[in-house]
């Protein structure tokens, strides 16, 4: 009630007039009433009424916050956070080595960035995750839906259909091996059509469409509350050309990062971004570094870099608050993103290693 007038979210012209008229606290405004206000400042009665409604909303919001209600800022102890984190799911990637170095998989409520040279498998991983997020809980998934924002046009529906079919097949084999009732029930709804129907695809042609889409995303996610994964495939592409004003680009990217963090937290979903690599010409050699500059590196919580070593694809965990840096090999099969098969195993095996915490190991059948 004692809130200063200058801090209220009114239009700046209105605030200037209120200050000139000598109003200092919100309480004074509320006491004056709309007619008095309009007379004193010289605005119309409707405008005065609107202003007072805004003030009232703000003040009641303040009161609720100080009373410890469900406001936007919450206090909790680290113990509560620990319990929350442990109960949270991960989105598995079907490559157990990658899941291991990530600490279980792609984490919800965090932003994960995947950088890599062209053709190394970033879009493949994104498509795999869009399918994996829908795995039912009894099989170790988070049973969510996916939003796929594509800026490069590399989303291939046929490929996603192949990956989804392989995933359904995998779950079917697990259900057969374990014969539990909830497995069977989950399998009824987990089919190719349902997987594809729950991937919401947006094609953004330039950075303005991308910005607009991210502004609208919170409303979309409120309507589709089961979404647990937001993928932006190619956050670098729209920002890397036609930008003379680099400071504008940095500002837009920072704003984007902020909004994505809010979305990840409020809707308990994982945000996965893919970035390109650019060549930095140094003194005596040039190296590949992630694009979009140094300051963008701070936006993501977890950063993975995919690269080649001769003909082997490798993934390096470059930045993570809880796991240590390591590099693992992976491969891309017709079924999707997988581990590299160890040489002792015969070629025609179907098995992929599973995260032992989430699902029991399946014995070799062939």
């Amino acid at each position, binding site marked *: 009630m004692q809130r200063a007038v200058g801090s209220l979210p009114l239009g700046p012209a209105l605030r200037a007039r209120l200050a000139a008229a000598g109003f200092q606290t919100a309480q004074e405004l509320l006491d004056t009433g709309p007619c008095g206000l309009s007379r004193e400042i010289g605005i119309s009665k409707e405008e005065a009424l609107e202003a007072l409604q*805004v003030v009232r909303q703000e003040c009641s919001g303040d009161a609720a916050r100080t009373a410890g209600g469900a406001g936007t800022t919450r206090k909790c102890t680290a113990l509560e956070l620990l319990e929350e984190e442990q109960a949270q799911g991960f989105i598995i990637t079907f490559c157990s080595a990658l899941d291991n170095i990530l600490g279980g998989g792609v984490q919800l409520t965090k932003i994960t960035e995947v950088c890599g040279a062209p053709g*190394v498998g970033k879009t493949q991983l994104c498509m795999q995750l869009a399918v994996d997020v829908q795995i039912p809980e009894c099989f170790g998934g988070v049973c969510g839906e996916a939003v796929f924002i594509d800026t490069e046009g590399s989303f291939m529906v046929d490929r996603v259909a192949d990956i989804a079919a392989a995933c359904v097949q995998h779950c079917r084999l697990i259900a057969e091996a374990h014969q539990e009732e909830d497995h069977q029930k989950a399998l009824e709804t987990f089919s190719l059509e349902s997987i*594809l129907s729950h991937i919401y695809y*947006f094609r953004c042609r330039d950075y*303005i469409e991308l910005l*607009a889409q991210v502004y609208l995303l919170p409303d979309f996610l409120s309507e589709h509350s089961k979404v647990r994964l937001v993928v932006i495939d190619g956050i670098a*592409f729209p920002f890397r050309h036609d930008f003379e004003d680099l400071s504008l680009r940095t500002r837009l990217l920072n704003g984007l990062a902020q909004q994505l963090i809010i979305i990840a937290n409020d809707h308990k979903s994982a945000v996965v971004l893919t970035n390109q690599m650019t060549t930095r010409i140094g003194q005596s050699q040039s190296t590949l570094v992630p694009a979009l500059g140094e300051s963008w590196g701070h936006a993501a919580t977890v950063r993975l870099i995919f690269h080649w070593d001769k003909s082997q694809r490798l993934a390096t965990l470059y930045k993570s608050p809880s796991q240590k840096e390591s590099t693992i090999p992976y491969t*891309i099969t017709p079924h999707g993103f997988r581990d590299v098969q160890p040489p002792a195993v015969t070629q025609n095996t179907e098995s992929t290693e599973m995260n032992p915490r989430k699902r029991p190991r399946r014995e070799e059948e062939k």
Partner: protein
Amino acid sequence: MAAKKLRRAKLPQELCERLSRYQITTCQDFLCLSLLELMKVTGQSYRNVQKLLCQVSLACAPKMQTAYEMKVRRSVNPSSAFLSTTLHSLDEVLHGGVPCGSLTEITSPPGCGKTQFCILMSVLATLPVSMGGLDGAVVYIDTESAFSAERLVEIAGNRFPAYFDSDEKLFCMTRSIHLYRELTCDSVLKRIKSLEEEIISKKVKLIIIDSVASVVRKEFDTQLQGNLAERSNFLARGASLLKYLAEEFSIPVILTNQITTSLSNGLAIPADLVSPADDLFLSEVSGAPGSGKKESGCVTAALGNTWSHSVNTRLILQYHNLPTRQILVAKSPVAPFSVFFYTIEKSGLVLQD
């Protein structure tokens, strides 16, 4: 989309006028400002500005489709998803052929057959759908003046003798291939911008640019300061225009590129390797046996890293043992690395089994 005027975003008239006093007329200007700046220019409260932002975003944002809808649409019209190259094993690996709606790049050292491949694809695009073609016109942007109409007729006559049995059919086919000779980067970009109307009026089903690298490398010397950035800018703009055309009309776009060695004044760029296909196969062929080949410089596709990100499929042609050559699938969202051997005959490219 970005240049959409705010009036068309259904903002109230007085607000648009007020904003135009601050030079904010398009959605792009509006969305690039922060919330506080917007409050200042519109003179509205925080909540109203948020509502305005949502309204303008709705005017710009893309439409949502589910993956299922996309799949259904593709399966309803399967023949329009690919342009078959009639090179059987290559088509199999690529799940049908050159994909529609995305950019495909053909890269090779000089003389391996890029232009031959392009001429072959032009013939194929004009064929009726029953024969695996797209039954449409072709836009061929030639920057090297390498297109030969005689060769075109020769390939058509030898590859499909049953179909092109009369002169009239040949003339009909040649009439649907529109050739443009552009010799500078600017004119290429202008031509690409003008393509949207041409595609609709002439019912174009294939765009070929032969070659992007020659015109870019002529004009941009990357040794000079600032040219690298300008070149990337030009390429990125061209790529996004072509992607828009490819997706909007669901047609394939074929571009050709050249091979380059790394910078010769000692600056080794092993990091510029796009994929192991570039490193392994190319240096095997072009270098001497032994470890010397890696040190003398790696051979990679030209035009840099950013360009490699923009193309969706990359095919590399190389020499093998003359007259045999090989074609590699180096980057593709649906195909793994594969190598096929071919020769160049009267009827164009012929795969060897």
